[in-house]
């Protein structure tokens, strides 16, 4: 989408609440309604022949849930697994997925007019998945359409036939 269309879309979007998290030095926000829970990180069971950023699957109260490391997917400099590493469990239209992030901050409500369109730049993130940029004091928040991002085929979570 071009810049102009994105700006129009942003202007009409209702204010939503975003859960902010940090990947290395970057801050991202995702729609809070898609978040099911936040957990600590536990080593998942590896699944063979999966892309590097899919760490494996875990048992979440009886359901098998894949774990995607966003730091690896977004080519961050480092991806450590410590006691502070967090997994955000998402419920995307009844598909449960967990994403590994460095830390989680607050839930922010951002009115639509404070959002700016993101310029089309070369990055590891598909520009369709970026809703816009939010400005909070001196921080820049990259707002993601997490559902689009996780459903993209290069995520490897959905097979091409889905």
């Amino acid at each position, binding site marked *: 989408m071009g810049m102009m269309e994105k700006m129009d879309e942003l202007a009409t979007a209702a204010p939503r609440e975003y859960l902010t998290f940090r990947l290395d030095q970057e801050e991202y926000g995702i729609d809070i309604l898609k978040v099911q829970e936040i957990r600590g990180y536990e080593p*998942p*069971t*590896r*699944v*063979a*022949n*999966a892309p590097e950023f899919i760490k*494996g*699957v*875990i*048992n979440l109260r*009886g*359901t*098998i*849930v*894949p774990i995607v490391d966003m730091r690896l997917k977004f080519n961050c400099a480092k991806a450590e697994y410590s006691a502070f590493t967090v997994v955000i469990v998402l419920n995307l239209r009844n*598909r*449960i*997925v967990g994403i590994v992030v460095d830390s989680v901050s607050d839930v922010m409500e951002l009115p639509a007019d404070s959002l700016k369109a993101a310029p089309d730049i070369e990055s590891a993130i598909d520009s369709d998945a970026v809703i816009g940029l939010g400005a909070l004091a001196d921080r820049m928040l990259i707002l993601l359409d997490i559902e689009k991002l996780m459903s993209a085929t290069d995520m*490897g*979570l*959905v*097979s091409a036939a*889905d």
Partner: protein
Amino acid sequence: MTEAQHESGGTGGDIDLSQFYQIFFEEAGENLDLMEQMLLNLNLETADDEELNGIFRCAHSVKGGAATFGFADVAELTHKMESLLDRLRRHEIQPNSAMVDVLLESADASRSLLARHQAGGEGEAMATGDLVRRISELALGGGGATAAAPKAVAPVAPPEPVAVKPALQPAASGEKAARSLEIRVGPIEHPEQADAIQELFRDIPGLGTVTVVATEEKGVRIFAVETVSSDDELLDLFAFHVAKEHIAIKAAGGGKASEAEDAHYGFFEGAAGAPEVATSYADDPPPGAPLAPLPGFGFFEGSPGAPAAASAAMTGAEAGGASKSPANASHPTGGAQPEAATIRVAINKVDQLINLVGELVITQAMLAQNSRALDPAVYQQLLTGLADLDRNTRDLQESVMSIRMIPMSIVFNRFPRMLRDLASKLGKKVDFVTQGEATELDKGLVEKITDPLTHLVRNSCDHGVEMPEQRIAAGKPETGTITLSASHQGGSIVIEVRDDGRGLSREKILSKARERGMDVSDQMSDSEVWGLIFAPGFSTAEVVTDVSGRGVGMDVVKKNIAALNGTVEIESSLGKGMRVSVRLPLTLAIMDGMSVGVGEEVYILPLSSVVESFQVKPEAVSTVAQGAQLVKVRDEYMPVIELEKVFQVPRFDFEKSCDIMVVVEADGSRVALLVDELLGQQQVVVKNLESNYRKVPNVSGATILGDGKVALILDTGALVRRSRH
């Protein structure tokens, strides 16, 4: 009368019958199915009373229920069928195949009319006038002008001018002089229903006149009627509102009672000659009589004598609620009355139960694991208790799993009718044989396997079995045979469709494949050649019929079966016949697994696929053509699959190495899997990996181990197939 009017007129009062609609639709469906089955099995030359009575009873049940709920179109059609069947069972006419055909078609029409009602009555109802006319013609012995399609509502009984049994009341034949009758209805719980009878006289021109006669008796209505119609016809009309058993017709002035007619329906066998016939089900003759009280329609009475069958139906209605399909209904076989005690249960309740049992198994496994470290001497009682728990859980799980299993006969039952119609349409003669109908299959699988099987059977009939002349010319019996069989083999269910037709032609398939530009060679093995027919759009049929030949079917069959994690194989012999084998894993949510260790990871093998395991020395493994590895097991060489390589298991500890082989058998062949160690055997709950992730090759699911970690369950079939090329 319109449907709406019926629906309110029929209830006449407090009962809201709509809560019973679902039960009626299900039971009517079963009765129609049973009737169809019996009609197909009917031996036209030596039809016995039991068979004919059974078919009659089915039509009668459906008619009664349809009338109660105000589905006049169904009631009318089934009434016609019932009249024909009645003549048949009293041997007034001989059964012939035209009758069977028209009855089968009428059963179909009834089904579709009922389906329309079930869906809310939208859309056009099928016209049944033609069927009704044909039934009437046949009832008269074929030929001869018949009455035009009867008026919208009034099901006038087919005129029986000559062959009337002497037992019939004299007034019911020939001349129809106006008669004065006294009609007594009751005692019934809702006498208001009888009032609707007056509407009948008002709405049907020429029926007669009716006046109410006052009566002191509770629950009873008495009418004085002037009419030209026969008692039979009147009873049929009134049946829309009140059951016949509650109606007594006598000539006005206390003349001879007319219940002799009702001998048709056998309800009064034990009461012949009794003056007042206000009976309820309670007074029915004992079950030895041809028409024992029909279960399921005991709504008419609240009378204390209502048979147990009626009250069972009521509790069924309360317990089952609005269930879509019975997980547990017993399907009556042959002509027997459906006697087995069953309860209709909604499927989601059963699924919930299975889930909970699954969780219980996991918890029990966890307890067992954690208790392994305990000192047996100190914790003896605890350990004994846990051992008991293990046994109980296992038993519970088996019982619960078996709830969802239903016999294959459910699937097989639709084929006789389908083949009969298909064979006659194509002009072929086909016998249909089934084996292993009692083999049980998970209900979820049954629904999905029906379409592919239907296609395979149609193929056999259309392309496999030759025309009778060709068969005779080939020295085969004129009638071909299609056999459908089901059996358990290992952890799978194998369903075969066999025919003794012309078989597959290797040359034709190869040339067709070349025509389509497929890469084939003459060196291909037979089974590879047969496998070509699964390609989309592939067909060697010269003539495309509307049954098959367009080449759309086989690839869909293969896809559907693959979606169930099953496989399809074909064997064929030119001129002799063909066999298609469908192999499906029994989808058990809980299965026995053997856990093996590879590196730091744990994998689970389905125990049913495991044949044996042994320790192996590196020298015993030989290579072939620098790639595949083989190991000799006694006198058999089998391929080796290194799980470490297949799953790219990272190896940290180079001291440990794979030196245990586990031989698994799947898909008809054996393969040896190379692992580090055998960890144990346990029950595992199969969790679906694909619901949140996607299909992983060589993996059929995942499970949660006692320590809460996830282990992948290997798809031994896929591993075996992988080793084949």
